[in-house]
């Protein structure tokens, strides 16, 4: 296989162990060439814009810039690189938002190596990939939009975290309550702030209450 016929891939994930695993998975196939690995969204954006890989594989919840924001920024810059977003759980982020932002694929981080490899290869062929086990979550997201434009602004988990914030819980207490890590809770809050176009917790709660997104 010649170098030019290989599929160039940029990989970005802030978790070093996961990133190493993903790169090793891709390295098992000679058609892939990982041309850059990054640990935050902003660095990923710059690398993708500079290297123009065939496919970019991005964690959806990275520091400095979330995966969806990287996809949006690529579109703004007119950089047409298919992006596969990796997510920890089907319900934690809005599939609709990811696809609307321009992502070409979405896959669970817990997916089998072969499924991730197949998804990257499919995106390189210009296809869109959305695993069957996530169709239900996407359908639910679309239905939520049909029934109320406000509620679908936030993913279920973001709404839940914001609701607990409104109840007076700190991020650490929410993490404990939901049995999730503190970084995950902070990521949900940051995503909620971005979607609500606010910069702090109090403003997010006030706006979410006003829009009827939380009770």
């Amino acid at each position, binding site marked *: 296989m010649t170098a030019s016929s290989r599929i160039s891939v940029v990989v970005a994930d802030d978790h070093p*162990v996961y990133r190493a*695993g993903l790169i090793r998975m891709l390295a098992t196939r000679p058609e892939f060439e990982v041309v850059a690995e990054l640990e935050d969204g902003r660095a990923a954006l710059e690398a993708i814009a500079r290297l123009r890989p065939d496919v970019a594989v991005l964690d959806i919840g990275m520091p400095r810039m979330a995966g969806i924001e990287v996809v949006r920024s690529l579109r703004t810059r007119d950089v047409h690189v298919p992006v596969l977003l990796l997510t920890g759980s089907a319900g934690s982020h809005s599939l609709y938002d990811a696809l609307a932002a321009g992502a070409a694929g979405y896959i669970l981080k817990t997916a089998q190596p072969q499924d991730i490899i197949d998804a990257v290869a499919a995106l390189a062929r210009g296809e869109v990939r959305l695993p069957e086990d996530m169709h239900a979550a996407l359908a639910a997201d679309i239905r939520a939009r049909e029934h109320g434009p406000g509620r679908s602004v936030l993913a279920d988990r973001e709404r839940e975290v914001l609701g607990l914030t409104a109840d007076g819980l700190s991020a650490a207490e929410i993490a404990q309550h939901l049995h999730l*890590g503190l*970084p995950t809770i902070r990521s949900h809050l940051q995503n909620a702030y971005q979607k609500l176009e606010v910069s702090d917790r109090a403003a997010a709660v006030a706006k979410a209450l006003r829009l009827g997104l939380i009770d």
Partner: protein
Amino acid sequence: MSATAPQACLNVMLVDDHPAIRTGLEVLLQTQGMRVVGAAENAEQGLRLYDAERPDVVVVDFNLGQEYGTDLADSIVELDPGAKVLVYTGAPDSETRERVSRSGARGLAHKSGDVCDLTLAIRTLASSPG
């Protein structure tokens, strides 16, 4: 700490239900000079693998799907009271810490920490008395 044991090539076994994490840990521990003798994706496989390989240290994910890694730690220690099991977890809350301290596991390492922290924890555990 013994003068010879810490630098010996350690045999490490992994148990994690997450394929990419298993692969990533394997890659990173190998780069630190450790020998990964096997990786299992659930408690049942993990116990069988331990029995077959008897590694120096076992790294077990706290959340093994529907099971707790601490339950596997207990099973391994029941099989081999000298087993050295390290539980690997995301940001540990008080319940996680309590479960780990009550279990047969000898230590807790954070997934969000630097990989060097994990390798240090493995080496420290390996050189501790059996």
